[in-house]
């Protein structure tokens, strides 16, 4: 007997749109973790990530009719997550003072940010970093990326979206998206090395 094929995300979404609440529960179970990890990396706070995770799924429920069968569920769901994260960060930015993520020069979206100037090389390197320290380092490094680089990095790494689809979501050419990915990697590398994480072989 052939093995029973699991329904695709898109099938489940169609079932849910047609009134099957069970299909939604299956989708939620499949993607809850990935979307949470994405949001956590995006906003950097557990409590906020928890709230936003609920918001993402509420929005999936509410706009199930807007989902087109042709598009991929992950692209659609992570776009919702990305938009909610950006909204959240914008609100925060208004409340706080100038962000370290802002580009140095006006109109410049790629490359170095203010953080590159203020980061100090003598931040007490502690080789033999344990896992907890590595985690905070990574989280900090991620939080310090500018928004455009961070969203591209996370959509590629966390959501697993191909660059072409990321380009659609953020509304930029594929080459620009790839450049942002490269800058993100360069910035992460600079931060980790500045914090004493040896990345060289």
């Amino acid at each position, binding site marked *: 007997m052939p093995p029973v094929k699991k329904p695709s995300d898109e099938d489940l979404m169609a079932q849910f*749109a*047609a*009134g099957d609440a069970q299909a939604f529960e299956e989708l939620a179970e499949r993607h809850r973790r990935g979307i949470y*990890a994405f949001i956590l990396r995006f906003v950097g706070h*557990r409590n906020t990530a928890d709230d936003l995770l609920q918001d993402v799924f509420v929005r999936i429920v*509410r706009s199930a009719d807007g989902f087109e069968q042709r598009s991929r569920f992950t692209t659609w769901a992570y776009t919702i997550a990305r938009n909610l994260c950006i909204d959240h960060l914008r609100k925060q930015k208004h409340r706080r003072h100038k962000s370290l993520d802002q580009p140095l020069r006006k109109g410049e979206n790629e490359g170095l940010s203010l953080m590159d100037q203020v980061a100090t090389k003598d931040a007490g390197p502690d080789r033999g970093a344990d896992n907890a320290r*590595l985690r905070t380092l990574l989280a900090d490094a991620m939080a310090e990326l500018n928004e455009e680089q961070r969203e591209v990095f996370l959509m590629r790494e966390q959501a697993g979206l191909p660059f072409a689809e990321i380009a659609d979501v953020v509304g930029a050419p594929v080459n620009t998206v790839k450049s942002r990915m490269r800058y993100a990697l360069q910035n992460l590398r600079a931060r980790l090395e500045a914090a004493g994480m040896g990345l060289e072989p």
Partner: protein
Amino acid sequence: MNCKWAEERVVDYLYDELSAEERQVFEKHLAECPEHAREVEASRKILGLMRAEDEVAREEAPALAASVFQAARERSATKPAQVIRPAFWQRWALRPAAMAAVLAMVLVGVALLVGIRPKNEPGMMSEQARPAEVMKAIAPVNVQNEQQASPPPASTTAEFKRESSDQPRRPATSRRMRKKPDPACSDVRPKHLVLRAKRQRRRQEKRREGKPSTGPAACPLASLKVRRLSAACRTRTLAP
């Protein structure tokens, strides 16, 4: 090799999106350019660290709130009726097809009425080729088909018209037949007069039943009127 060329392909190389030839050229460049070699190495390490950390983050994911599932159930409960109704573009898309079908039916009807039919119909040929016994055996089934598809060639157009208009044969007592007004006078007598006459007749009958001794002359005026009306009716129908 050219550093600029390689720079633009670092990400493609990391995600294995280069063609085989490009990858060869790129790797040759890495062997010659320590800066890009370090960048690729460091990037791979970062991606590896992040992916390992992601596993931890995924495990920490909280469950969805009951209210989210509640919202999903509520939405599903209100859903089925809406799903059955097609989107408006679907409804419109169906229209030309329906119109085409109606048009086709009308054309076929007109063609049958006028007596035009395609020559050398394959179905007819095979039917003619059949032995008479077979034809007899399937006769009850074929009677109608023949009438529809191939009227006897001898019949005139007028005859055929009559026949084909009779197609859906109704019993003599069908509603249409019963409803058919009496051709003798209904076309000349206005309805209110017919009704009045009816009422008068009924009244007369009642009177007859109630007082059998008086007879039909109980109200001479009324019967006179009726008689006069029906006479007028007859004369008018006969006139042309």
